């Protein structure tokens, strides 16, 4: 029995893969894997920008794709903890288990913000590793791209040179883009904003935006009428210039605030695919900046 299985296993191992099968949990890592992998990778993205990545189900289609993956690229930091363990249990794929080379966690390569002192559910759905929405700051993408390309080269040594070359090219264009974005974003420094969910902390830290209030009373707990009234009185004391919501979020609370204060609602793509023109990572940050600047411009004379 064992001998038959052994020869079968060798047969499978010996079959050359045409492309490295990458399973990305979220669109930003799918887009990054495409930038770095080019034609050497086949990328499957498990979620879209219009889905709440905290609340994904281990659907049959995801299990089937997980089974075929040679590399899983996840954010980690408990972002996918509601469904990735279920995929690991049902997906029967030892090559991408946490702790193996086939499992890449992006959060390990950036400095985490909002790491809590106390983890208590009364504070909402708090992540012990810190805020997991690391993709909202463009410098983080580059910090992750390096180790990811090294990992891809290690898993697919036949194409190692290709991964190295593509990363080198990506680094140059990304650094140029960073310089351009940071110059364009200068007017945003110090601008007060209202967030829907605490999911753009890295963006704020990068561009110097100021979070005046959050519509969710606590992470993961939808806003109640009472809490929105409280936000309204906060805004009377400390005005904000815009109310932000990610594409996947309910727009009602942000519109409620907008109707009462006159500040515009800005829908951020949040990740690749969250708005027209965000088919890749460059487009994602271009559109994010453009929308923030447009909103800041409309109320620039007001305050």
């Amino acid at each position, binding site marked *: 029995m064992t001998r038959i299985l052994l020869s079968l*296993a060798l047969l499978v191992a010996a079959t050359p893969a045409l492309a490295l099968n990458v399973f990305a949990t979220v669109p930003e890592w799918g887009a990054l894997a495409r930038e770095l992998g080019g034609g050497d990778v086949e990328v499957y993205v498990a979620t879209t920008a219009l889905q709440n990545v905290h609340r994904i189900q281990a659907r049959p289609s995801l299990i089937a794709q997980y089974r075929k993956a040679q590399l899983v690229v996840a954010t980690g930091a408990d972002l996918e903890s509601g469904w990735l363990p279920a995929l690991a249990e049902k997906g029967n794929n030892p090559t991408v288990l946490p702790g193996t080379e086939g499992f890449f966690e992006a959060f390990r390569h950036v400095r985490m913000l909002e790491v809590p002192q106390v983890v208590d559910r009364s504070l909402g759905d708090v992540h012990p590793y810190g805020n997991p929405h690391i993709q909202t700051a463009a410098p983080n993408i580059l910090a992750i791209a390096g180790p990811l390309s090294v990992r891809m080269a290690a898993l697919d040594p036949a194409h190692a040179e290709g991964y190295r070359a593509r990363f080198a090219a990506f680094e140059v264009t990304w650094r140029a883009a960073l310089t351009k974005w940071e110059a364009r974003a200068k007017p945003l420094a110090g601008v007060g904003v209202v967030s829907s969910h605490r999911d753009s902390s890295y963006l704020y830290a990068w561009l110097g935006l100021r979070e005046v209030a959050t519509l969710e009373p606590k992470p993961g707990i939808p806003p109640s009428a009472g809490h929105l009234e409280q936000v309204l009185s906060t805004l009377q004391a400390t005005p904000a210039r815009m109310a932000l919501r990610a594409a996947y979020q309910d727009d009602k609370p942000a519109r409620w605030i907008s109707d009462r204060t006159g500040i515009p609602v800005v829908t951020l793509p949040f990740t690749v695919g969250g708005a027209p023109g965000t088919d890749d990572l460059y487009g994602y940050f271009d559109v994010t900046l453009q929308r923030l600047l447009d909103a800041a411009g409309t109320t620039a004379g007001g305050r």
Partner: protein
Amino acid sequence: MHRSLFRFALGATLAAGVIPAAAQNATPSSNPKISLILVGGYADYSSRAPAEVSGVLLGPETDLAPAGLSVGETELVVDANVDDQFHGWATVALANEDGETVVELEEAYFNTLALPLGLAVKGGRFFSDIGYQNHVHAHGWDFVDLPLVYRALLAGQLNDDGVQMRWLAPTDLFMEFGAEILRGGQFPAGGERRSGANSLAAFWHLGGDVGASQSWRLGLSHLAADADDRRTGEAADTGFTGDSDVRILDVVWKWAPEGNVTRTSLVANAEFFWREEEGTLVSDPDGAAVASAYEGKQRGFYVQGAWQFMPRWRAGLRYDRLDAADNEIPNNPAGEFNGLLDDSYAPQRVAAMVDFSNSEFSRLRVQLARDETRPAGEADTQLFLQYILSLGSHPAHQF
């Protein structure tokens, strides 16, 4: 049995050269994951008649939830990766039985993490993967109680001791096959004199997506159980010796706009059960011991849907039906088996519920049901209020 499979699993893994690095760094939050489920509420029934169902012999623990205020099963769940090869899971339930608190080992199993070729083995005590709702933990149900087919034909959910082997096909379409060898200590198997494996189960699942908004799964399963003086009934004991075969067709369909469940979503599922029993029935085995040959054919289904109509709020509707008109019991001298032969009415039930989830860790529910499952279709109007709270780590639920 356990030991030889265990060796096989290890051997196959090492042979394939799959020796993953040590498991992820242990952190206080993730290893082991511990959660405690608090469930309780209120129940009211308009009928005080014994909760029997015409045409079937109800198995153990099929009573309705106690009327009035009560705490349900409090579950303590611990799970963690044992090492790079094994994952372990245990569910200990504290239940109320006749005013006493009883500890039940609901699940205690290991499953392999690193078998090659899409294979996985599970061993210990676990919820069988037959049907759709059989493996869903009580706190994940869309209604307060189980569908009628589960209560009547499986005596709740089938959790037995044994081994499961599962193979996942390397295809874009989700397809898995599984087989289980079970001790057979649980209804519809059962009985005192047990040895070897007395229940076999097999299942086949197919699933996928339709665009970004819809996903589905279809399942076929078969349970072949061997009963040896399986005792059922409270006042008048009945023993059954023979074969019990259960076939299940299940389908689940989920919808959310763009796959985004933030605002609205819909989950619909249905299961069809066919059960055939053939053997000998003995009424009052320890007393009068009236015996008869028995051929039972029962079938039933349920259809249910749960609709999230705004963030945190869901409404659900379920229809249950059972049909047991084809039971044959030739020897019935004093009407001992009249309950089983009662085919005057097909048991049915309609239930409606509304629930509110403050977060993904807390849920409050109201359920109203019209139950016509008792003999002669006597109607029972049922009202339930329920809370379900989960403390501790994120529960990672199956589809």
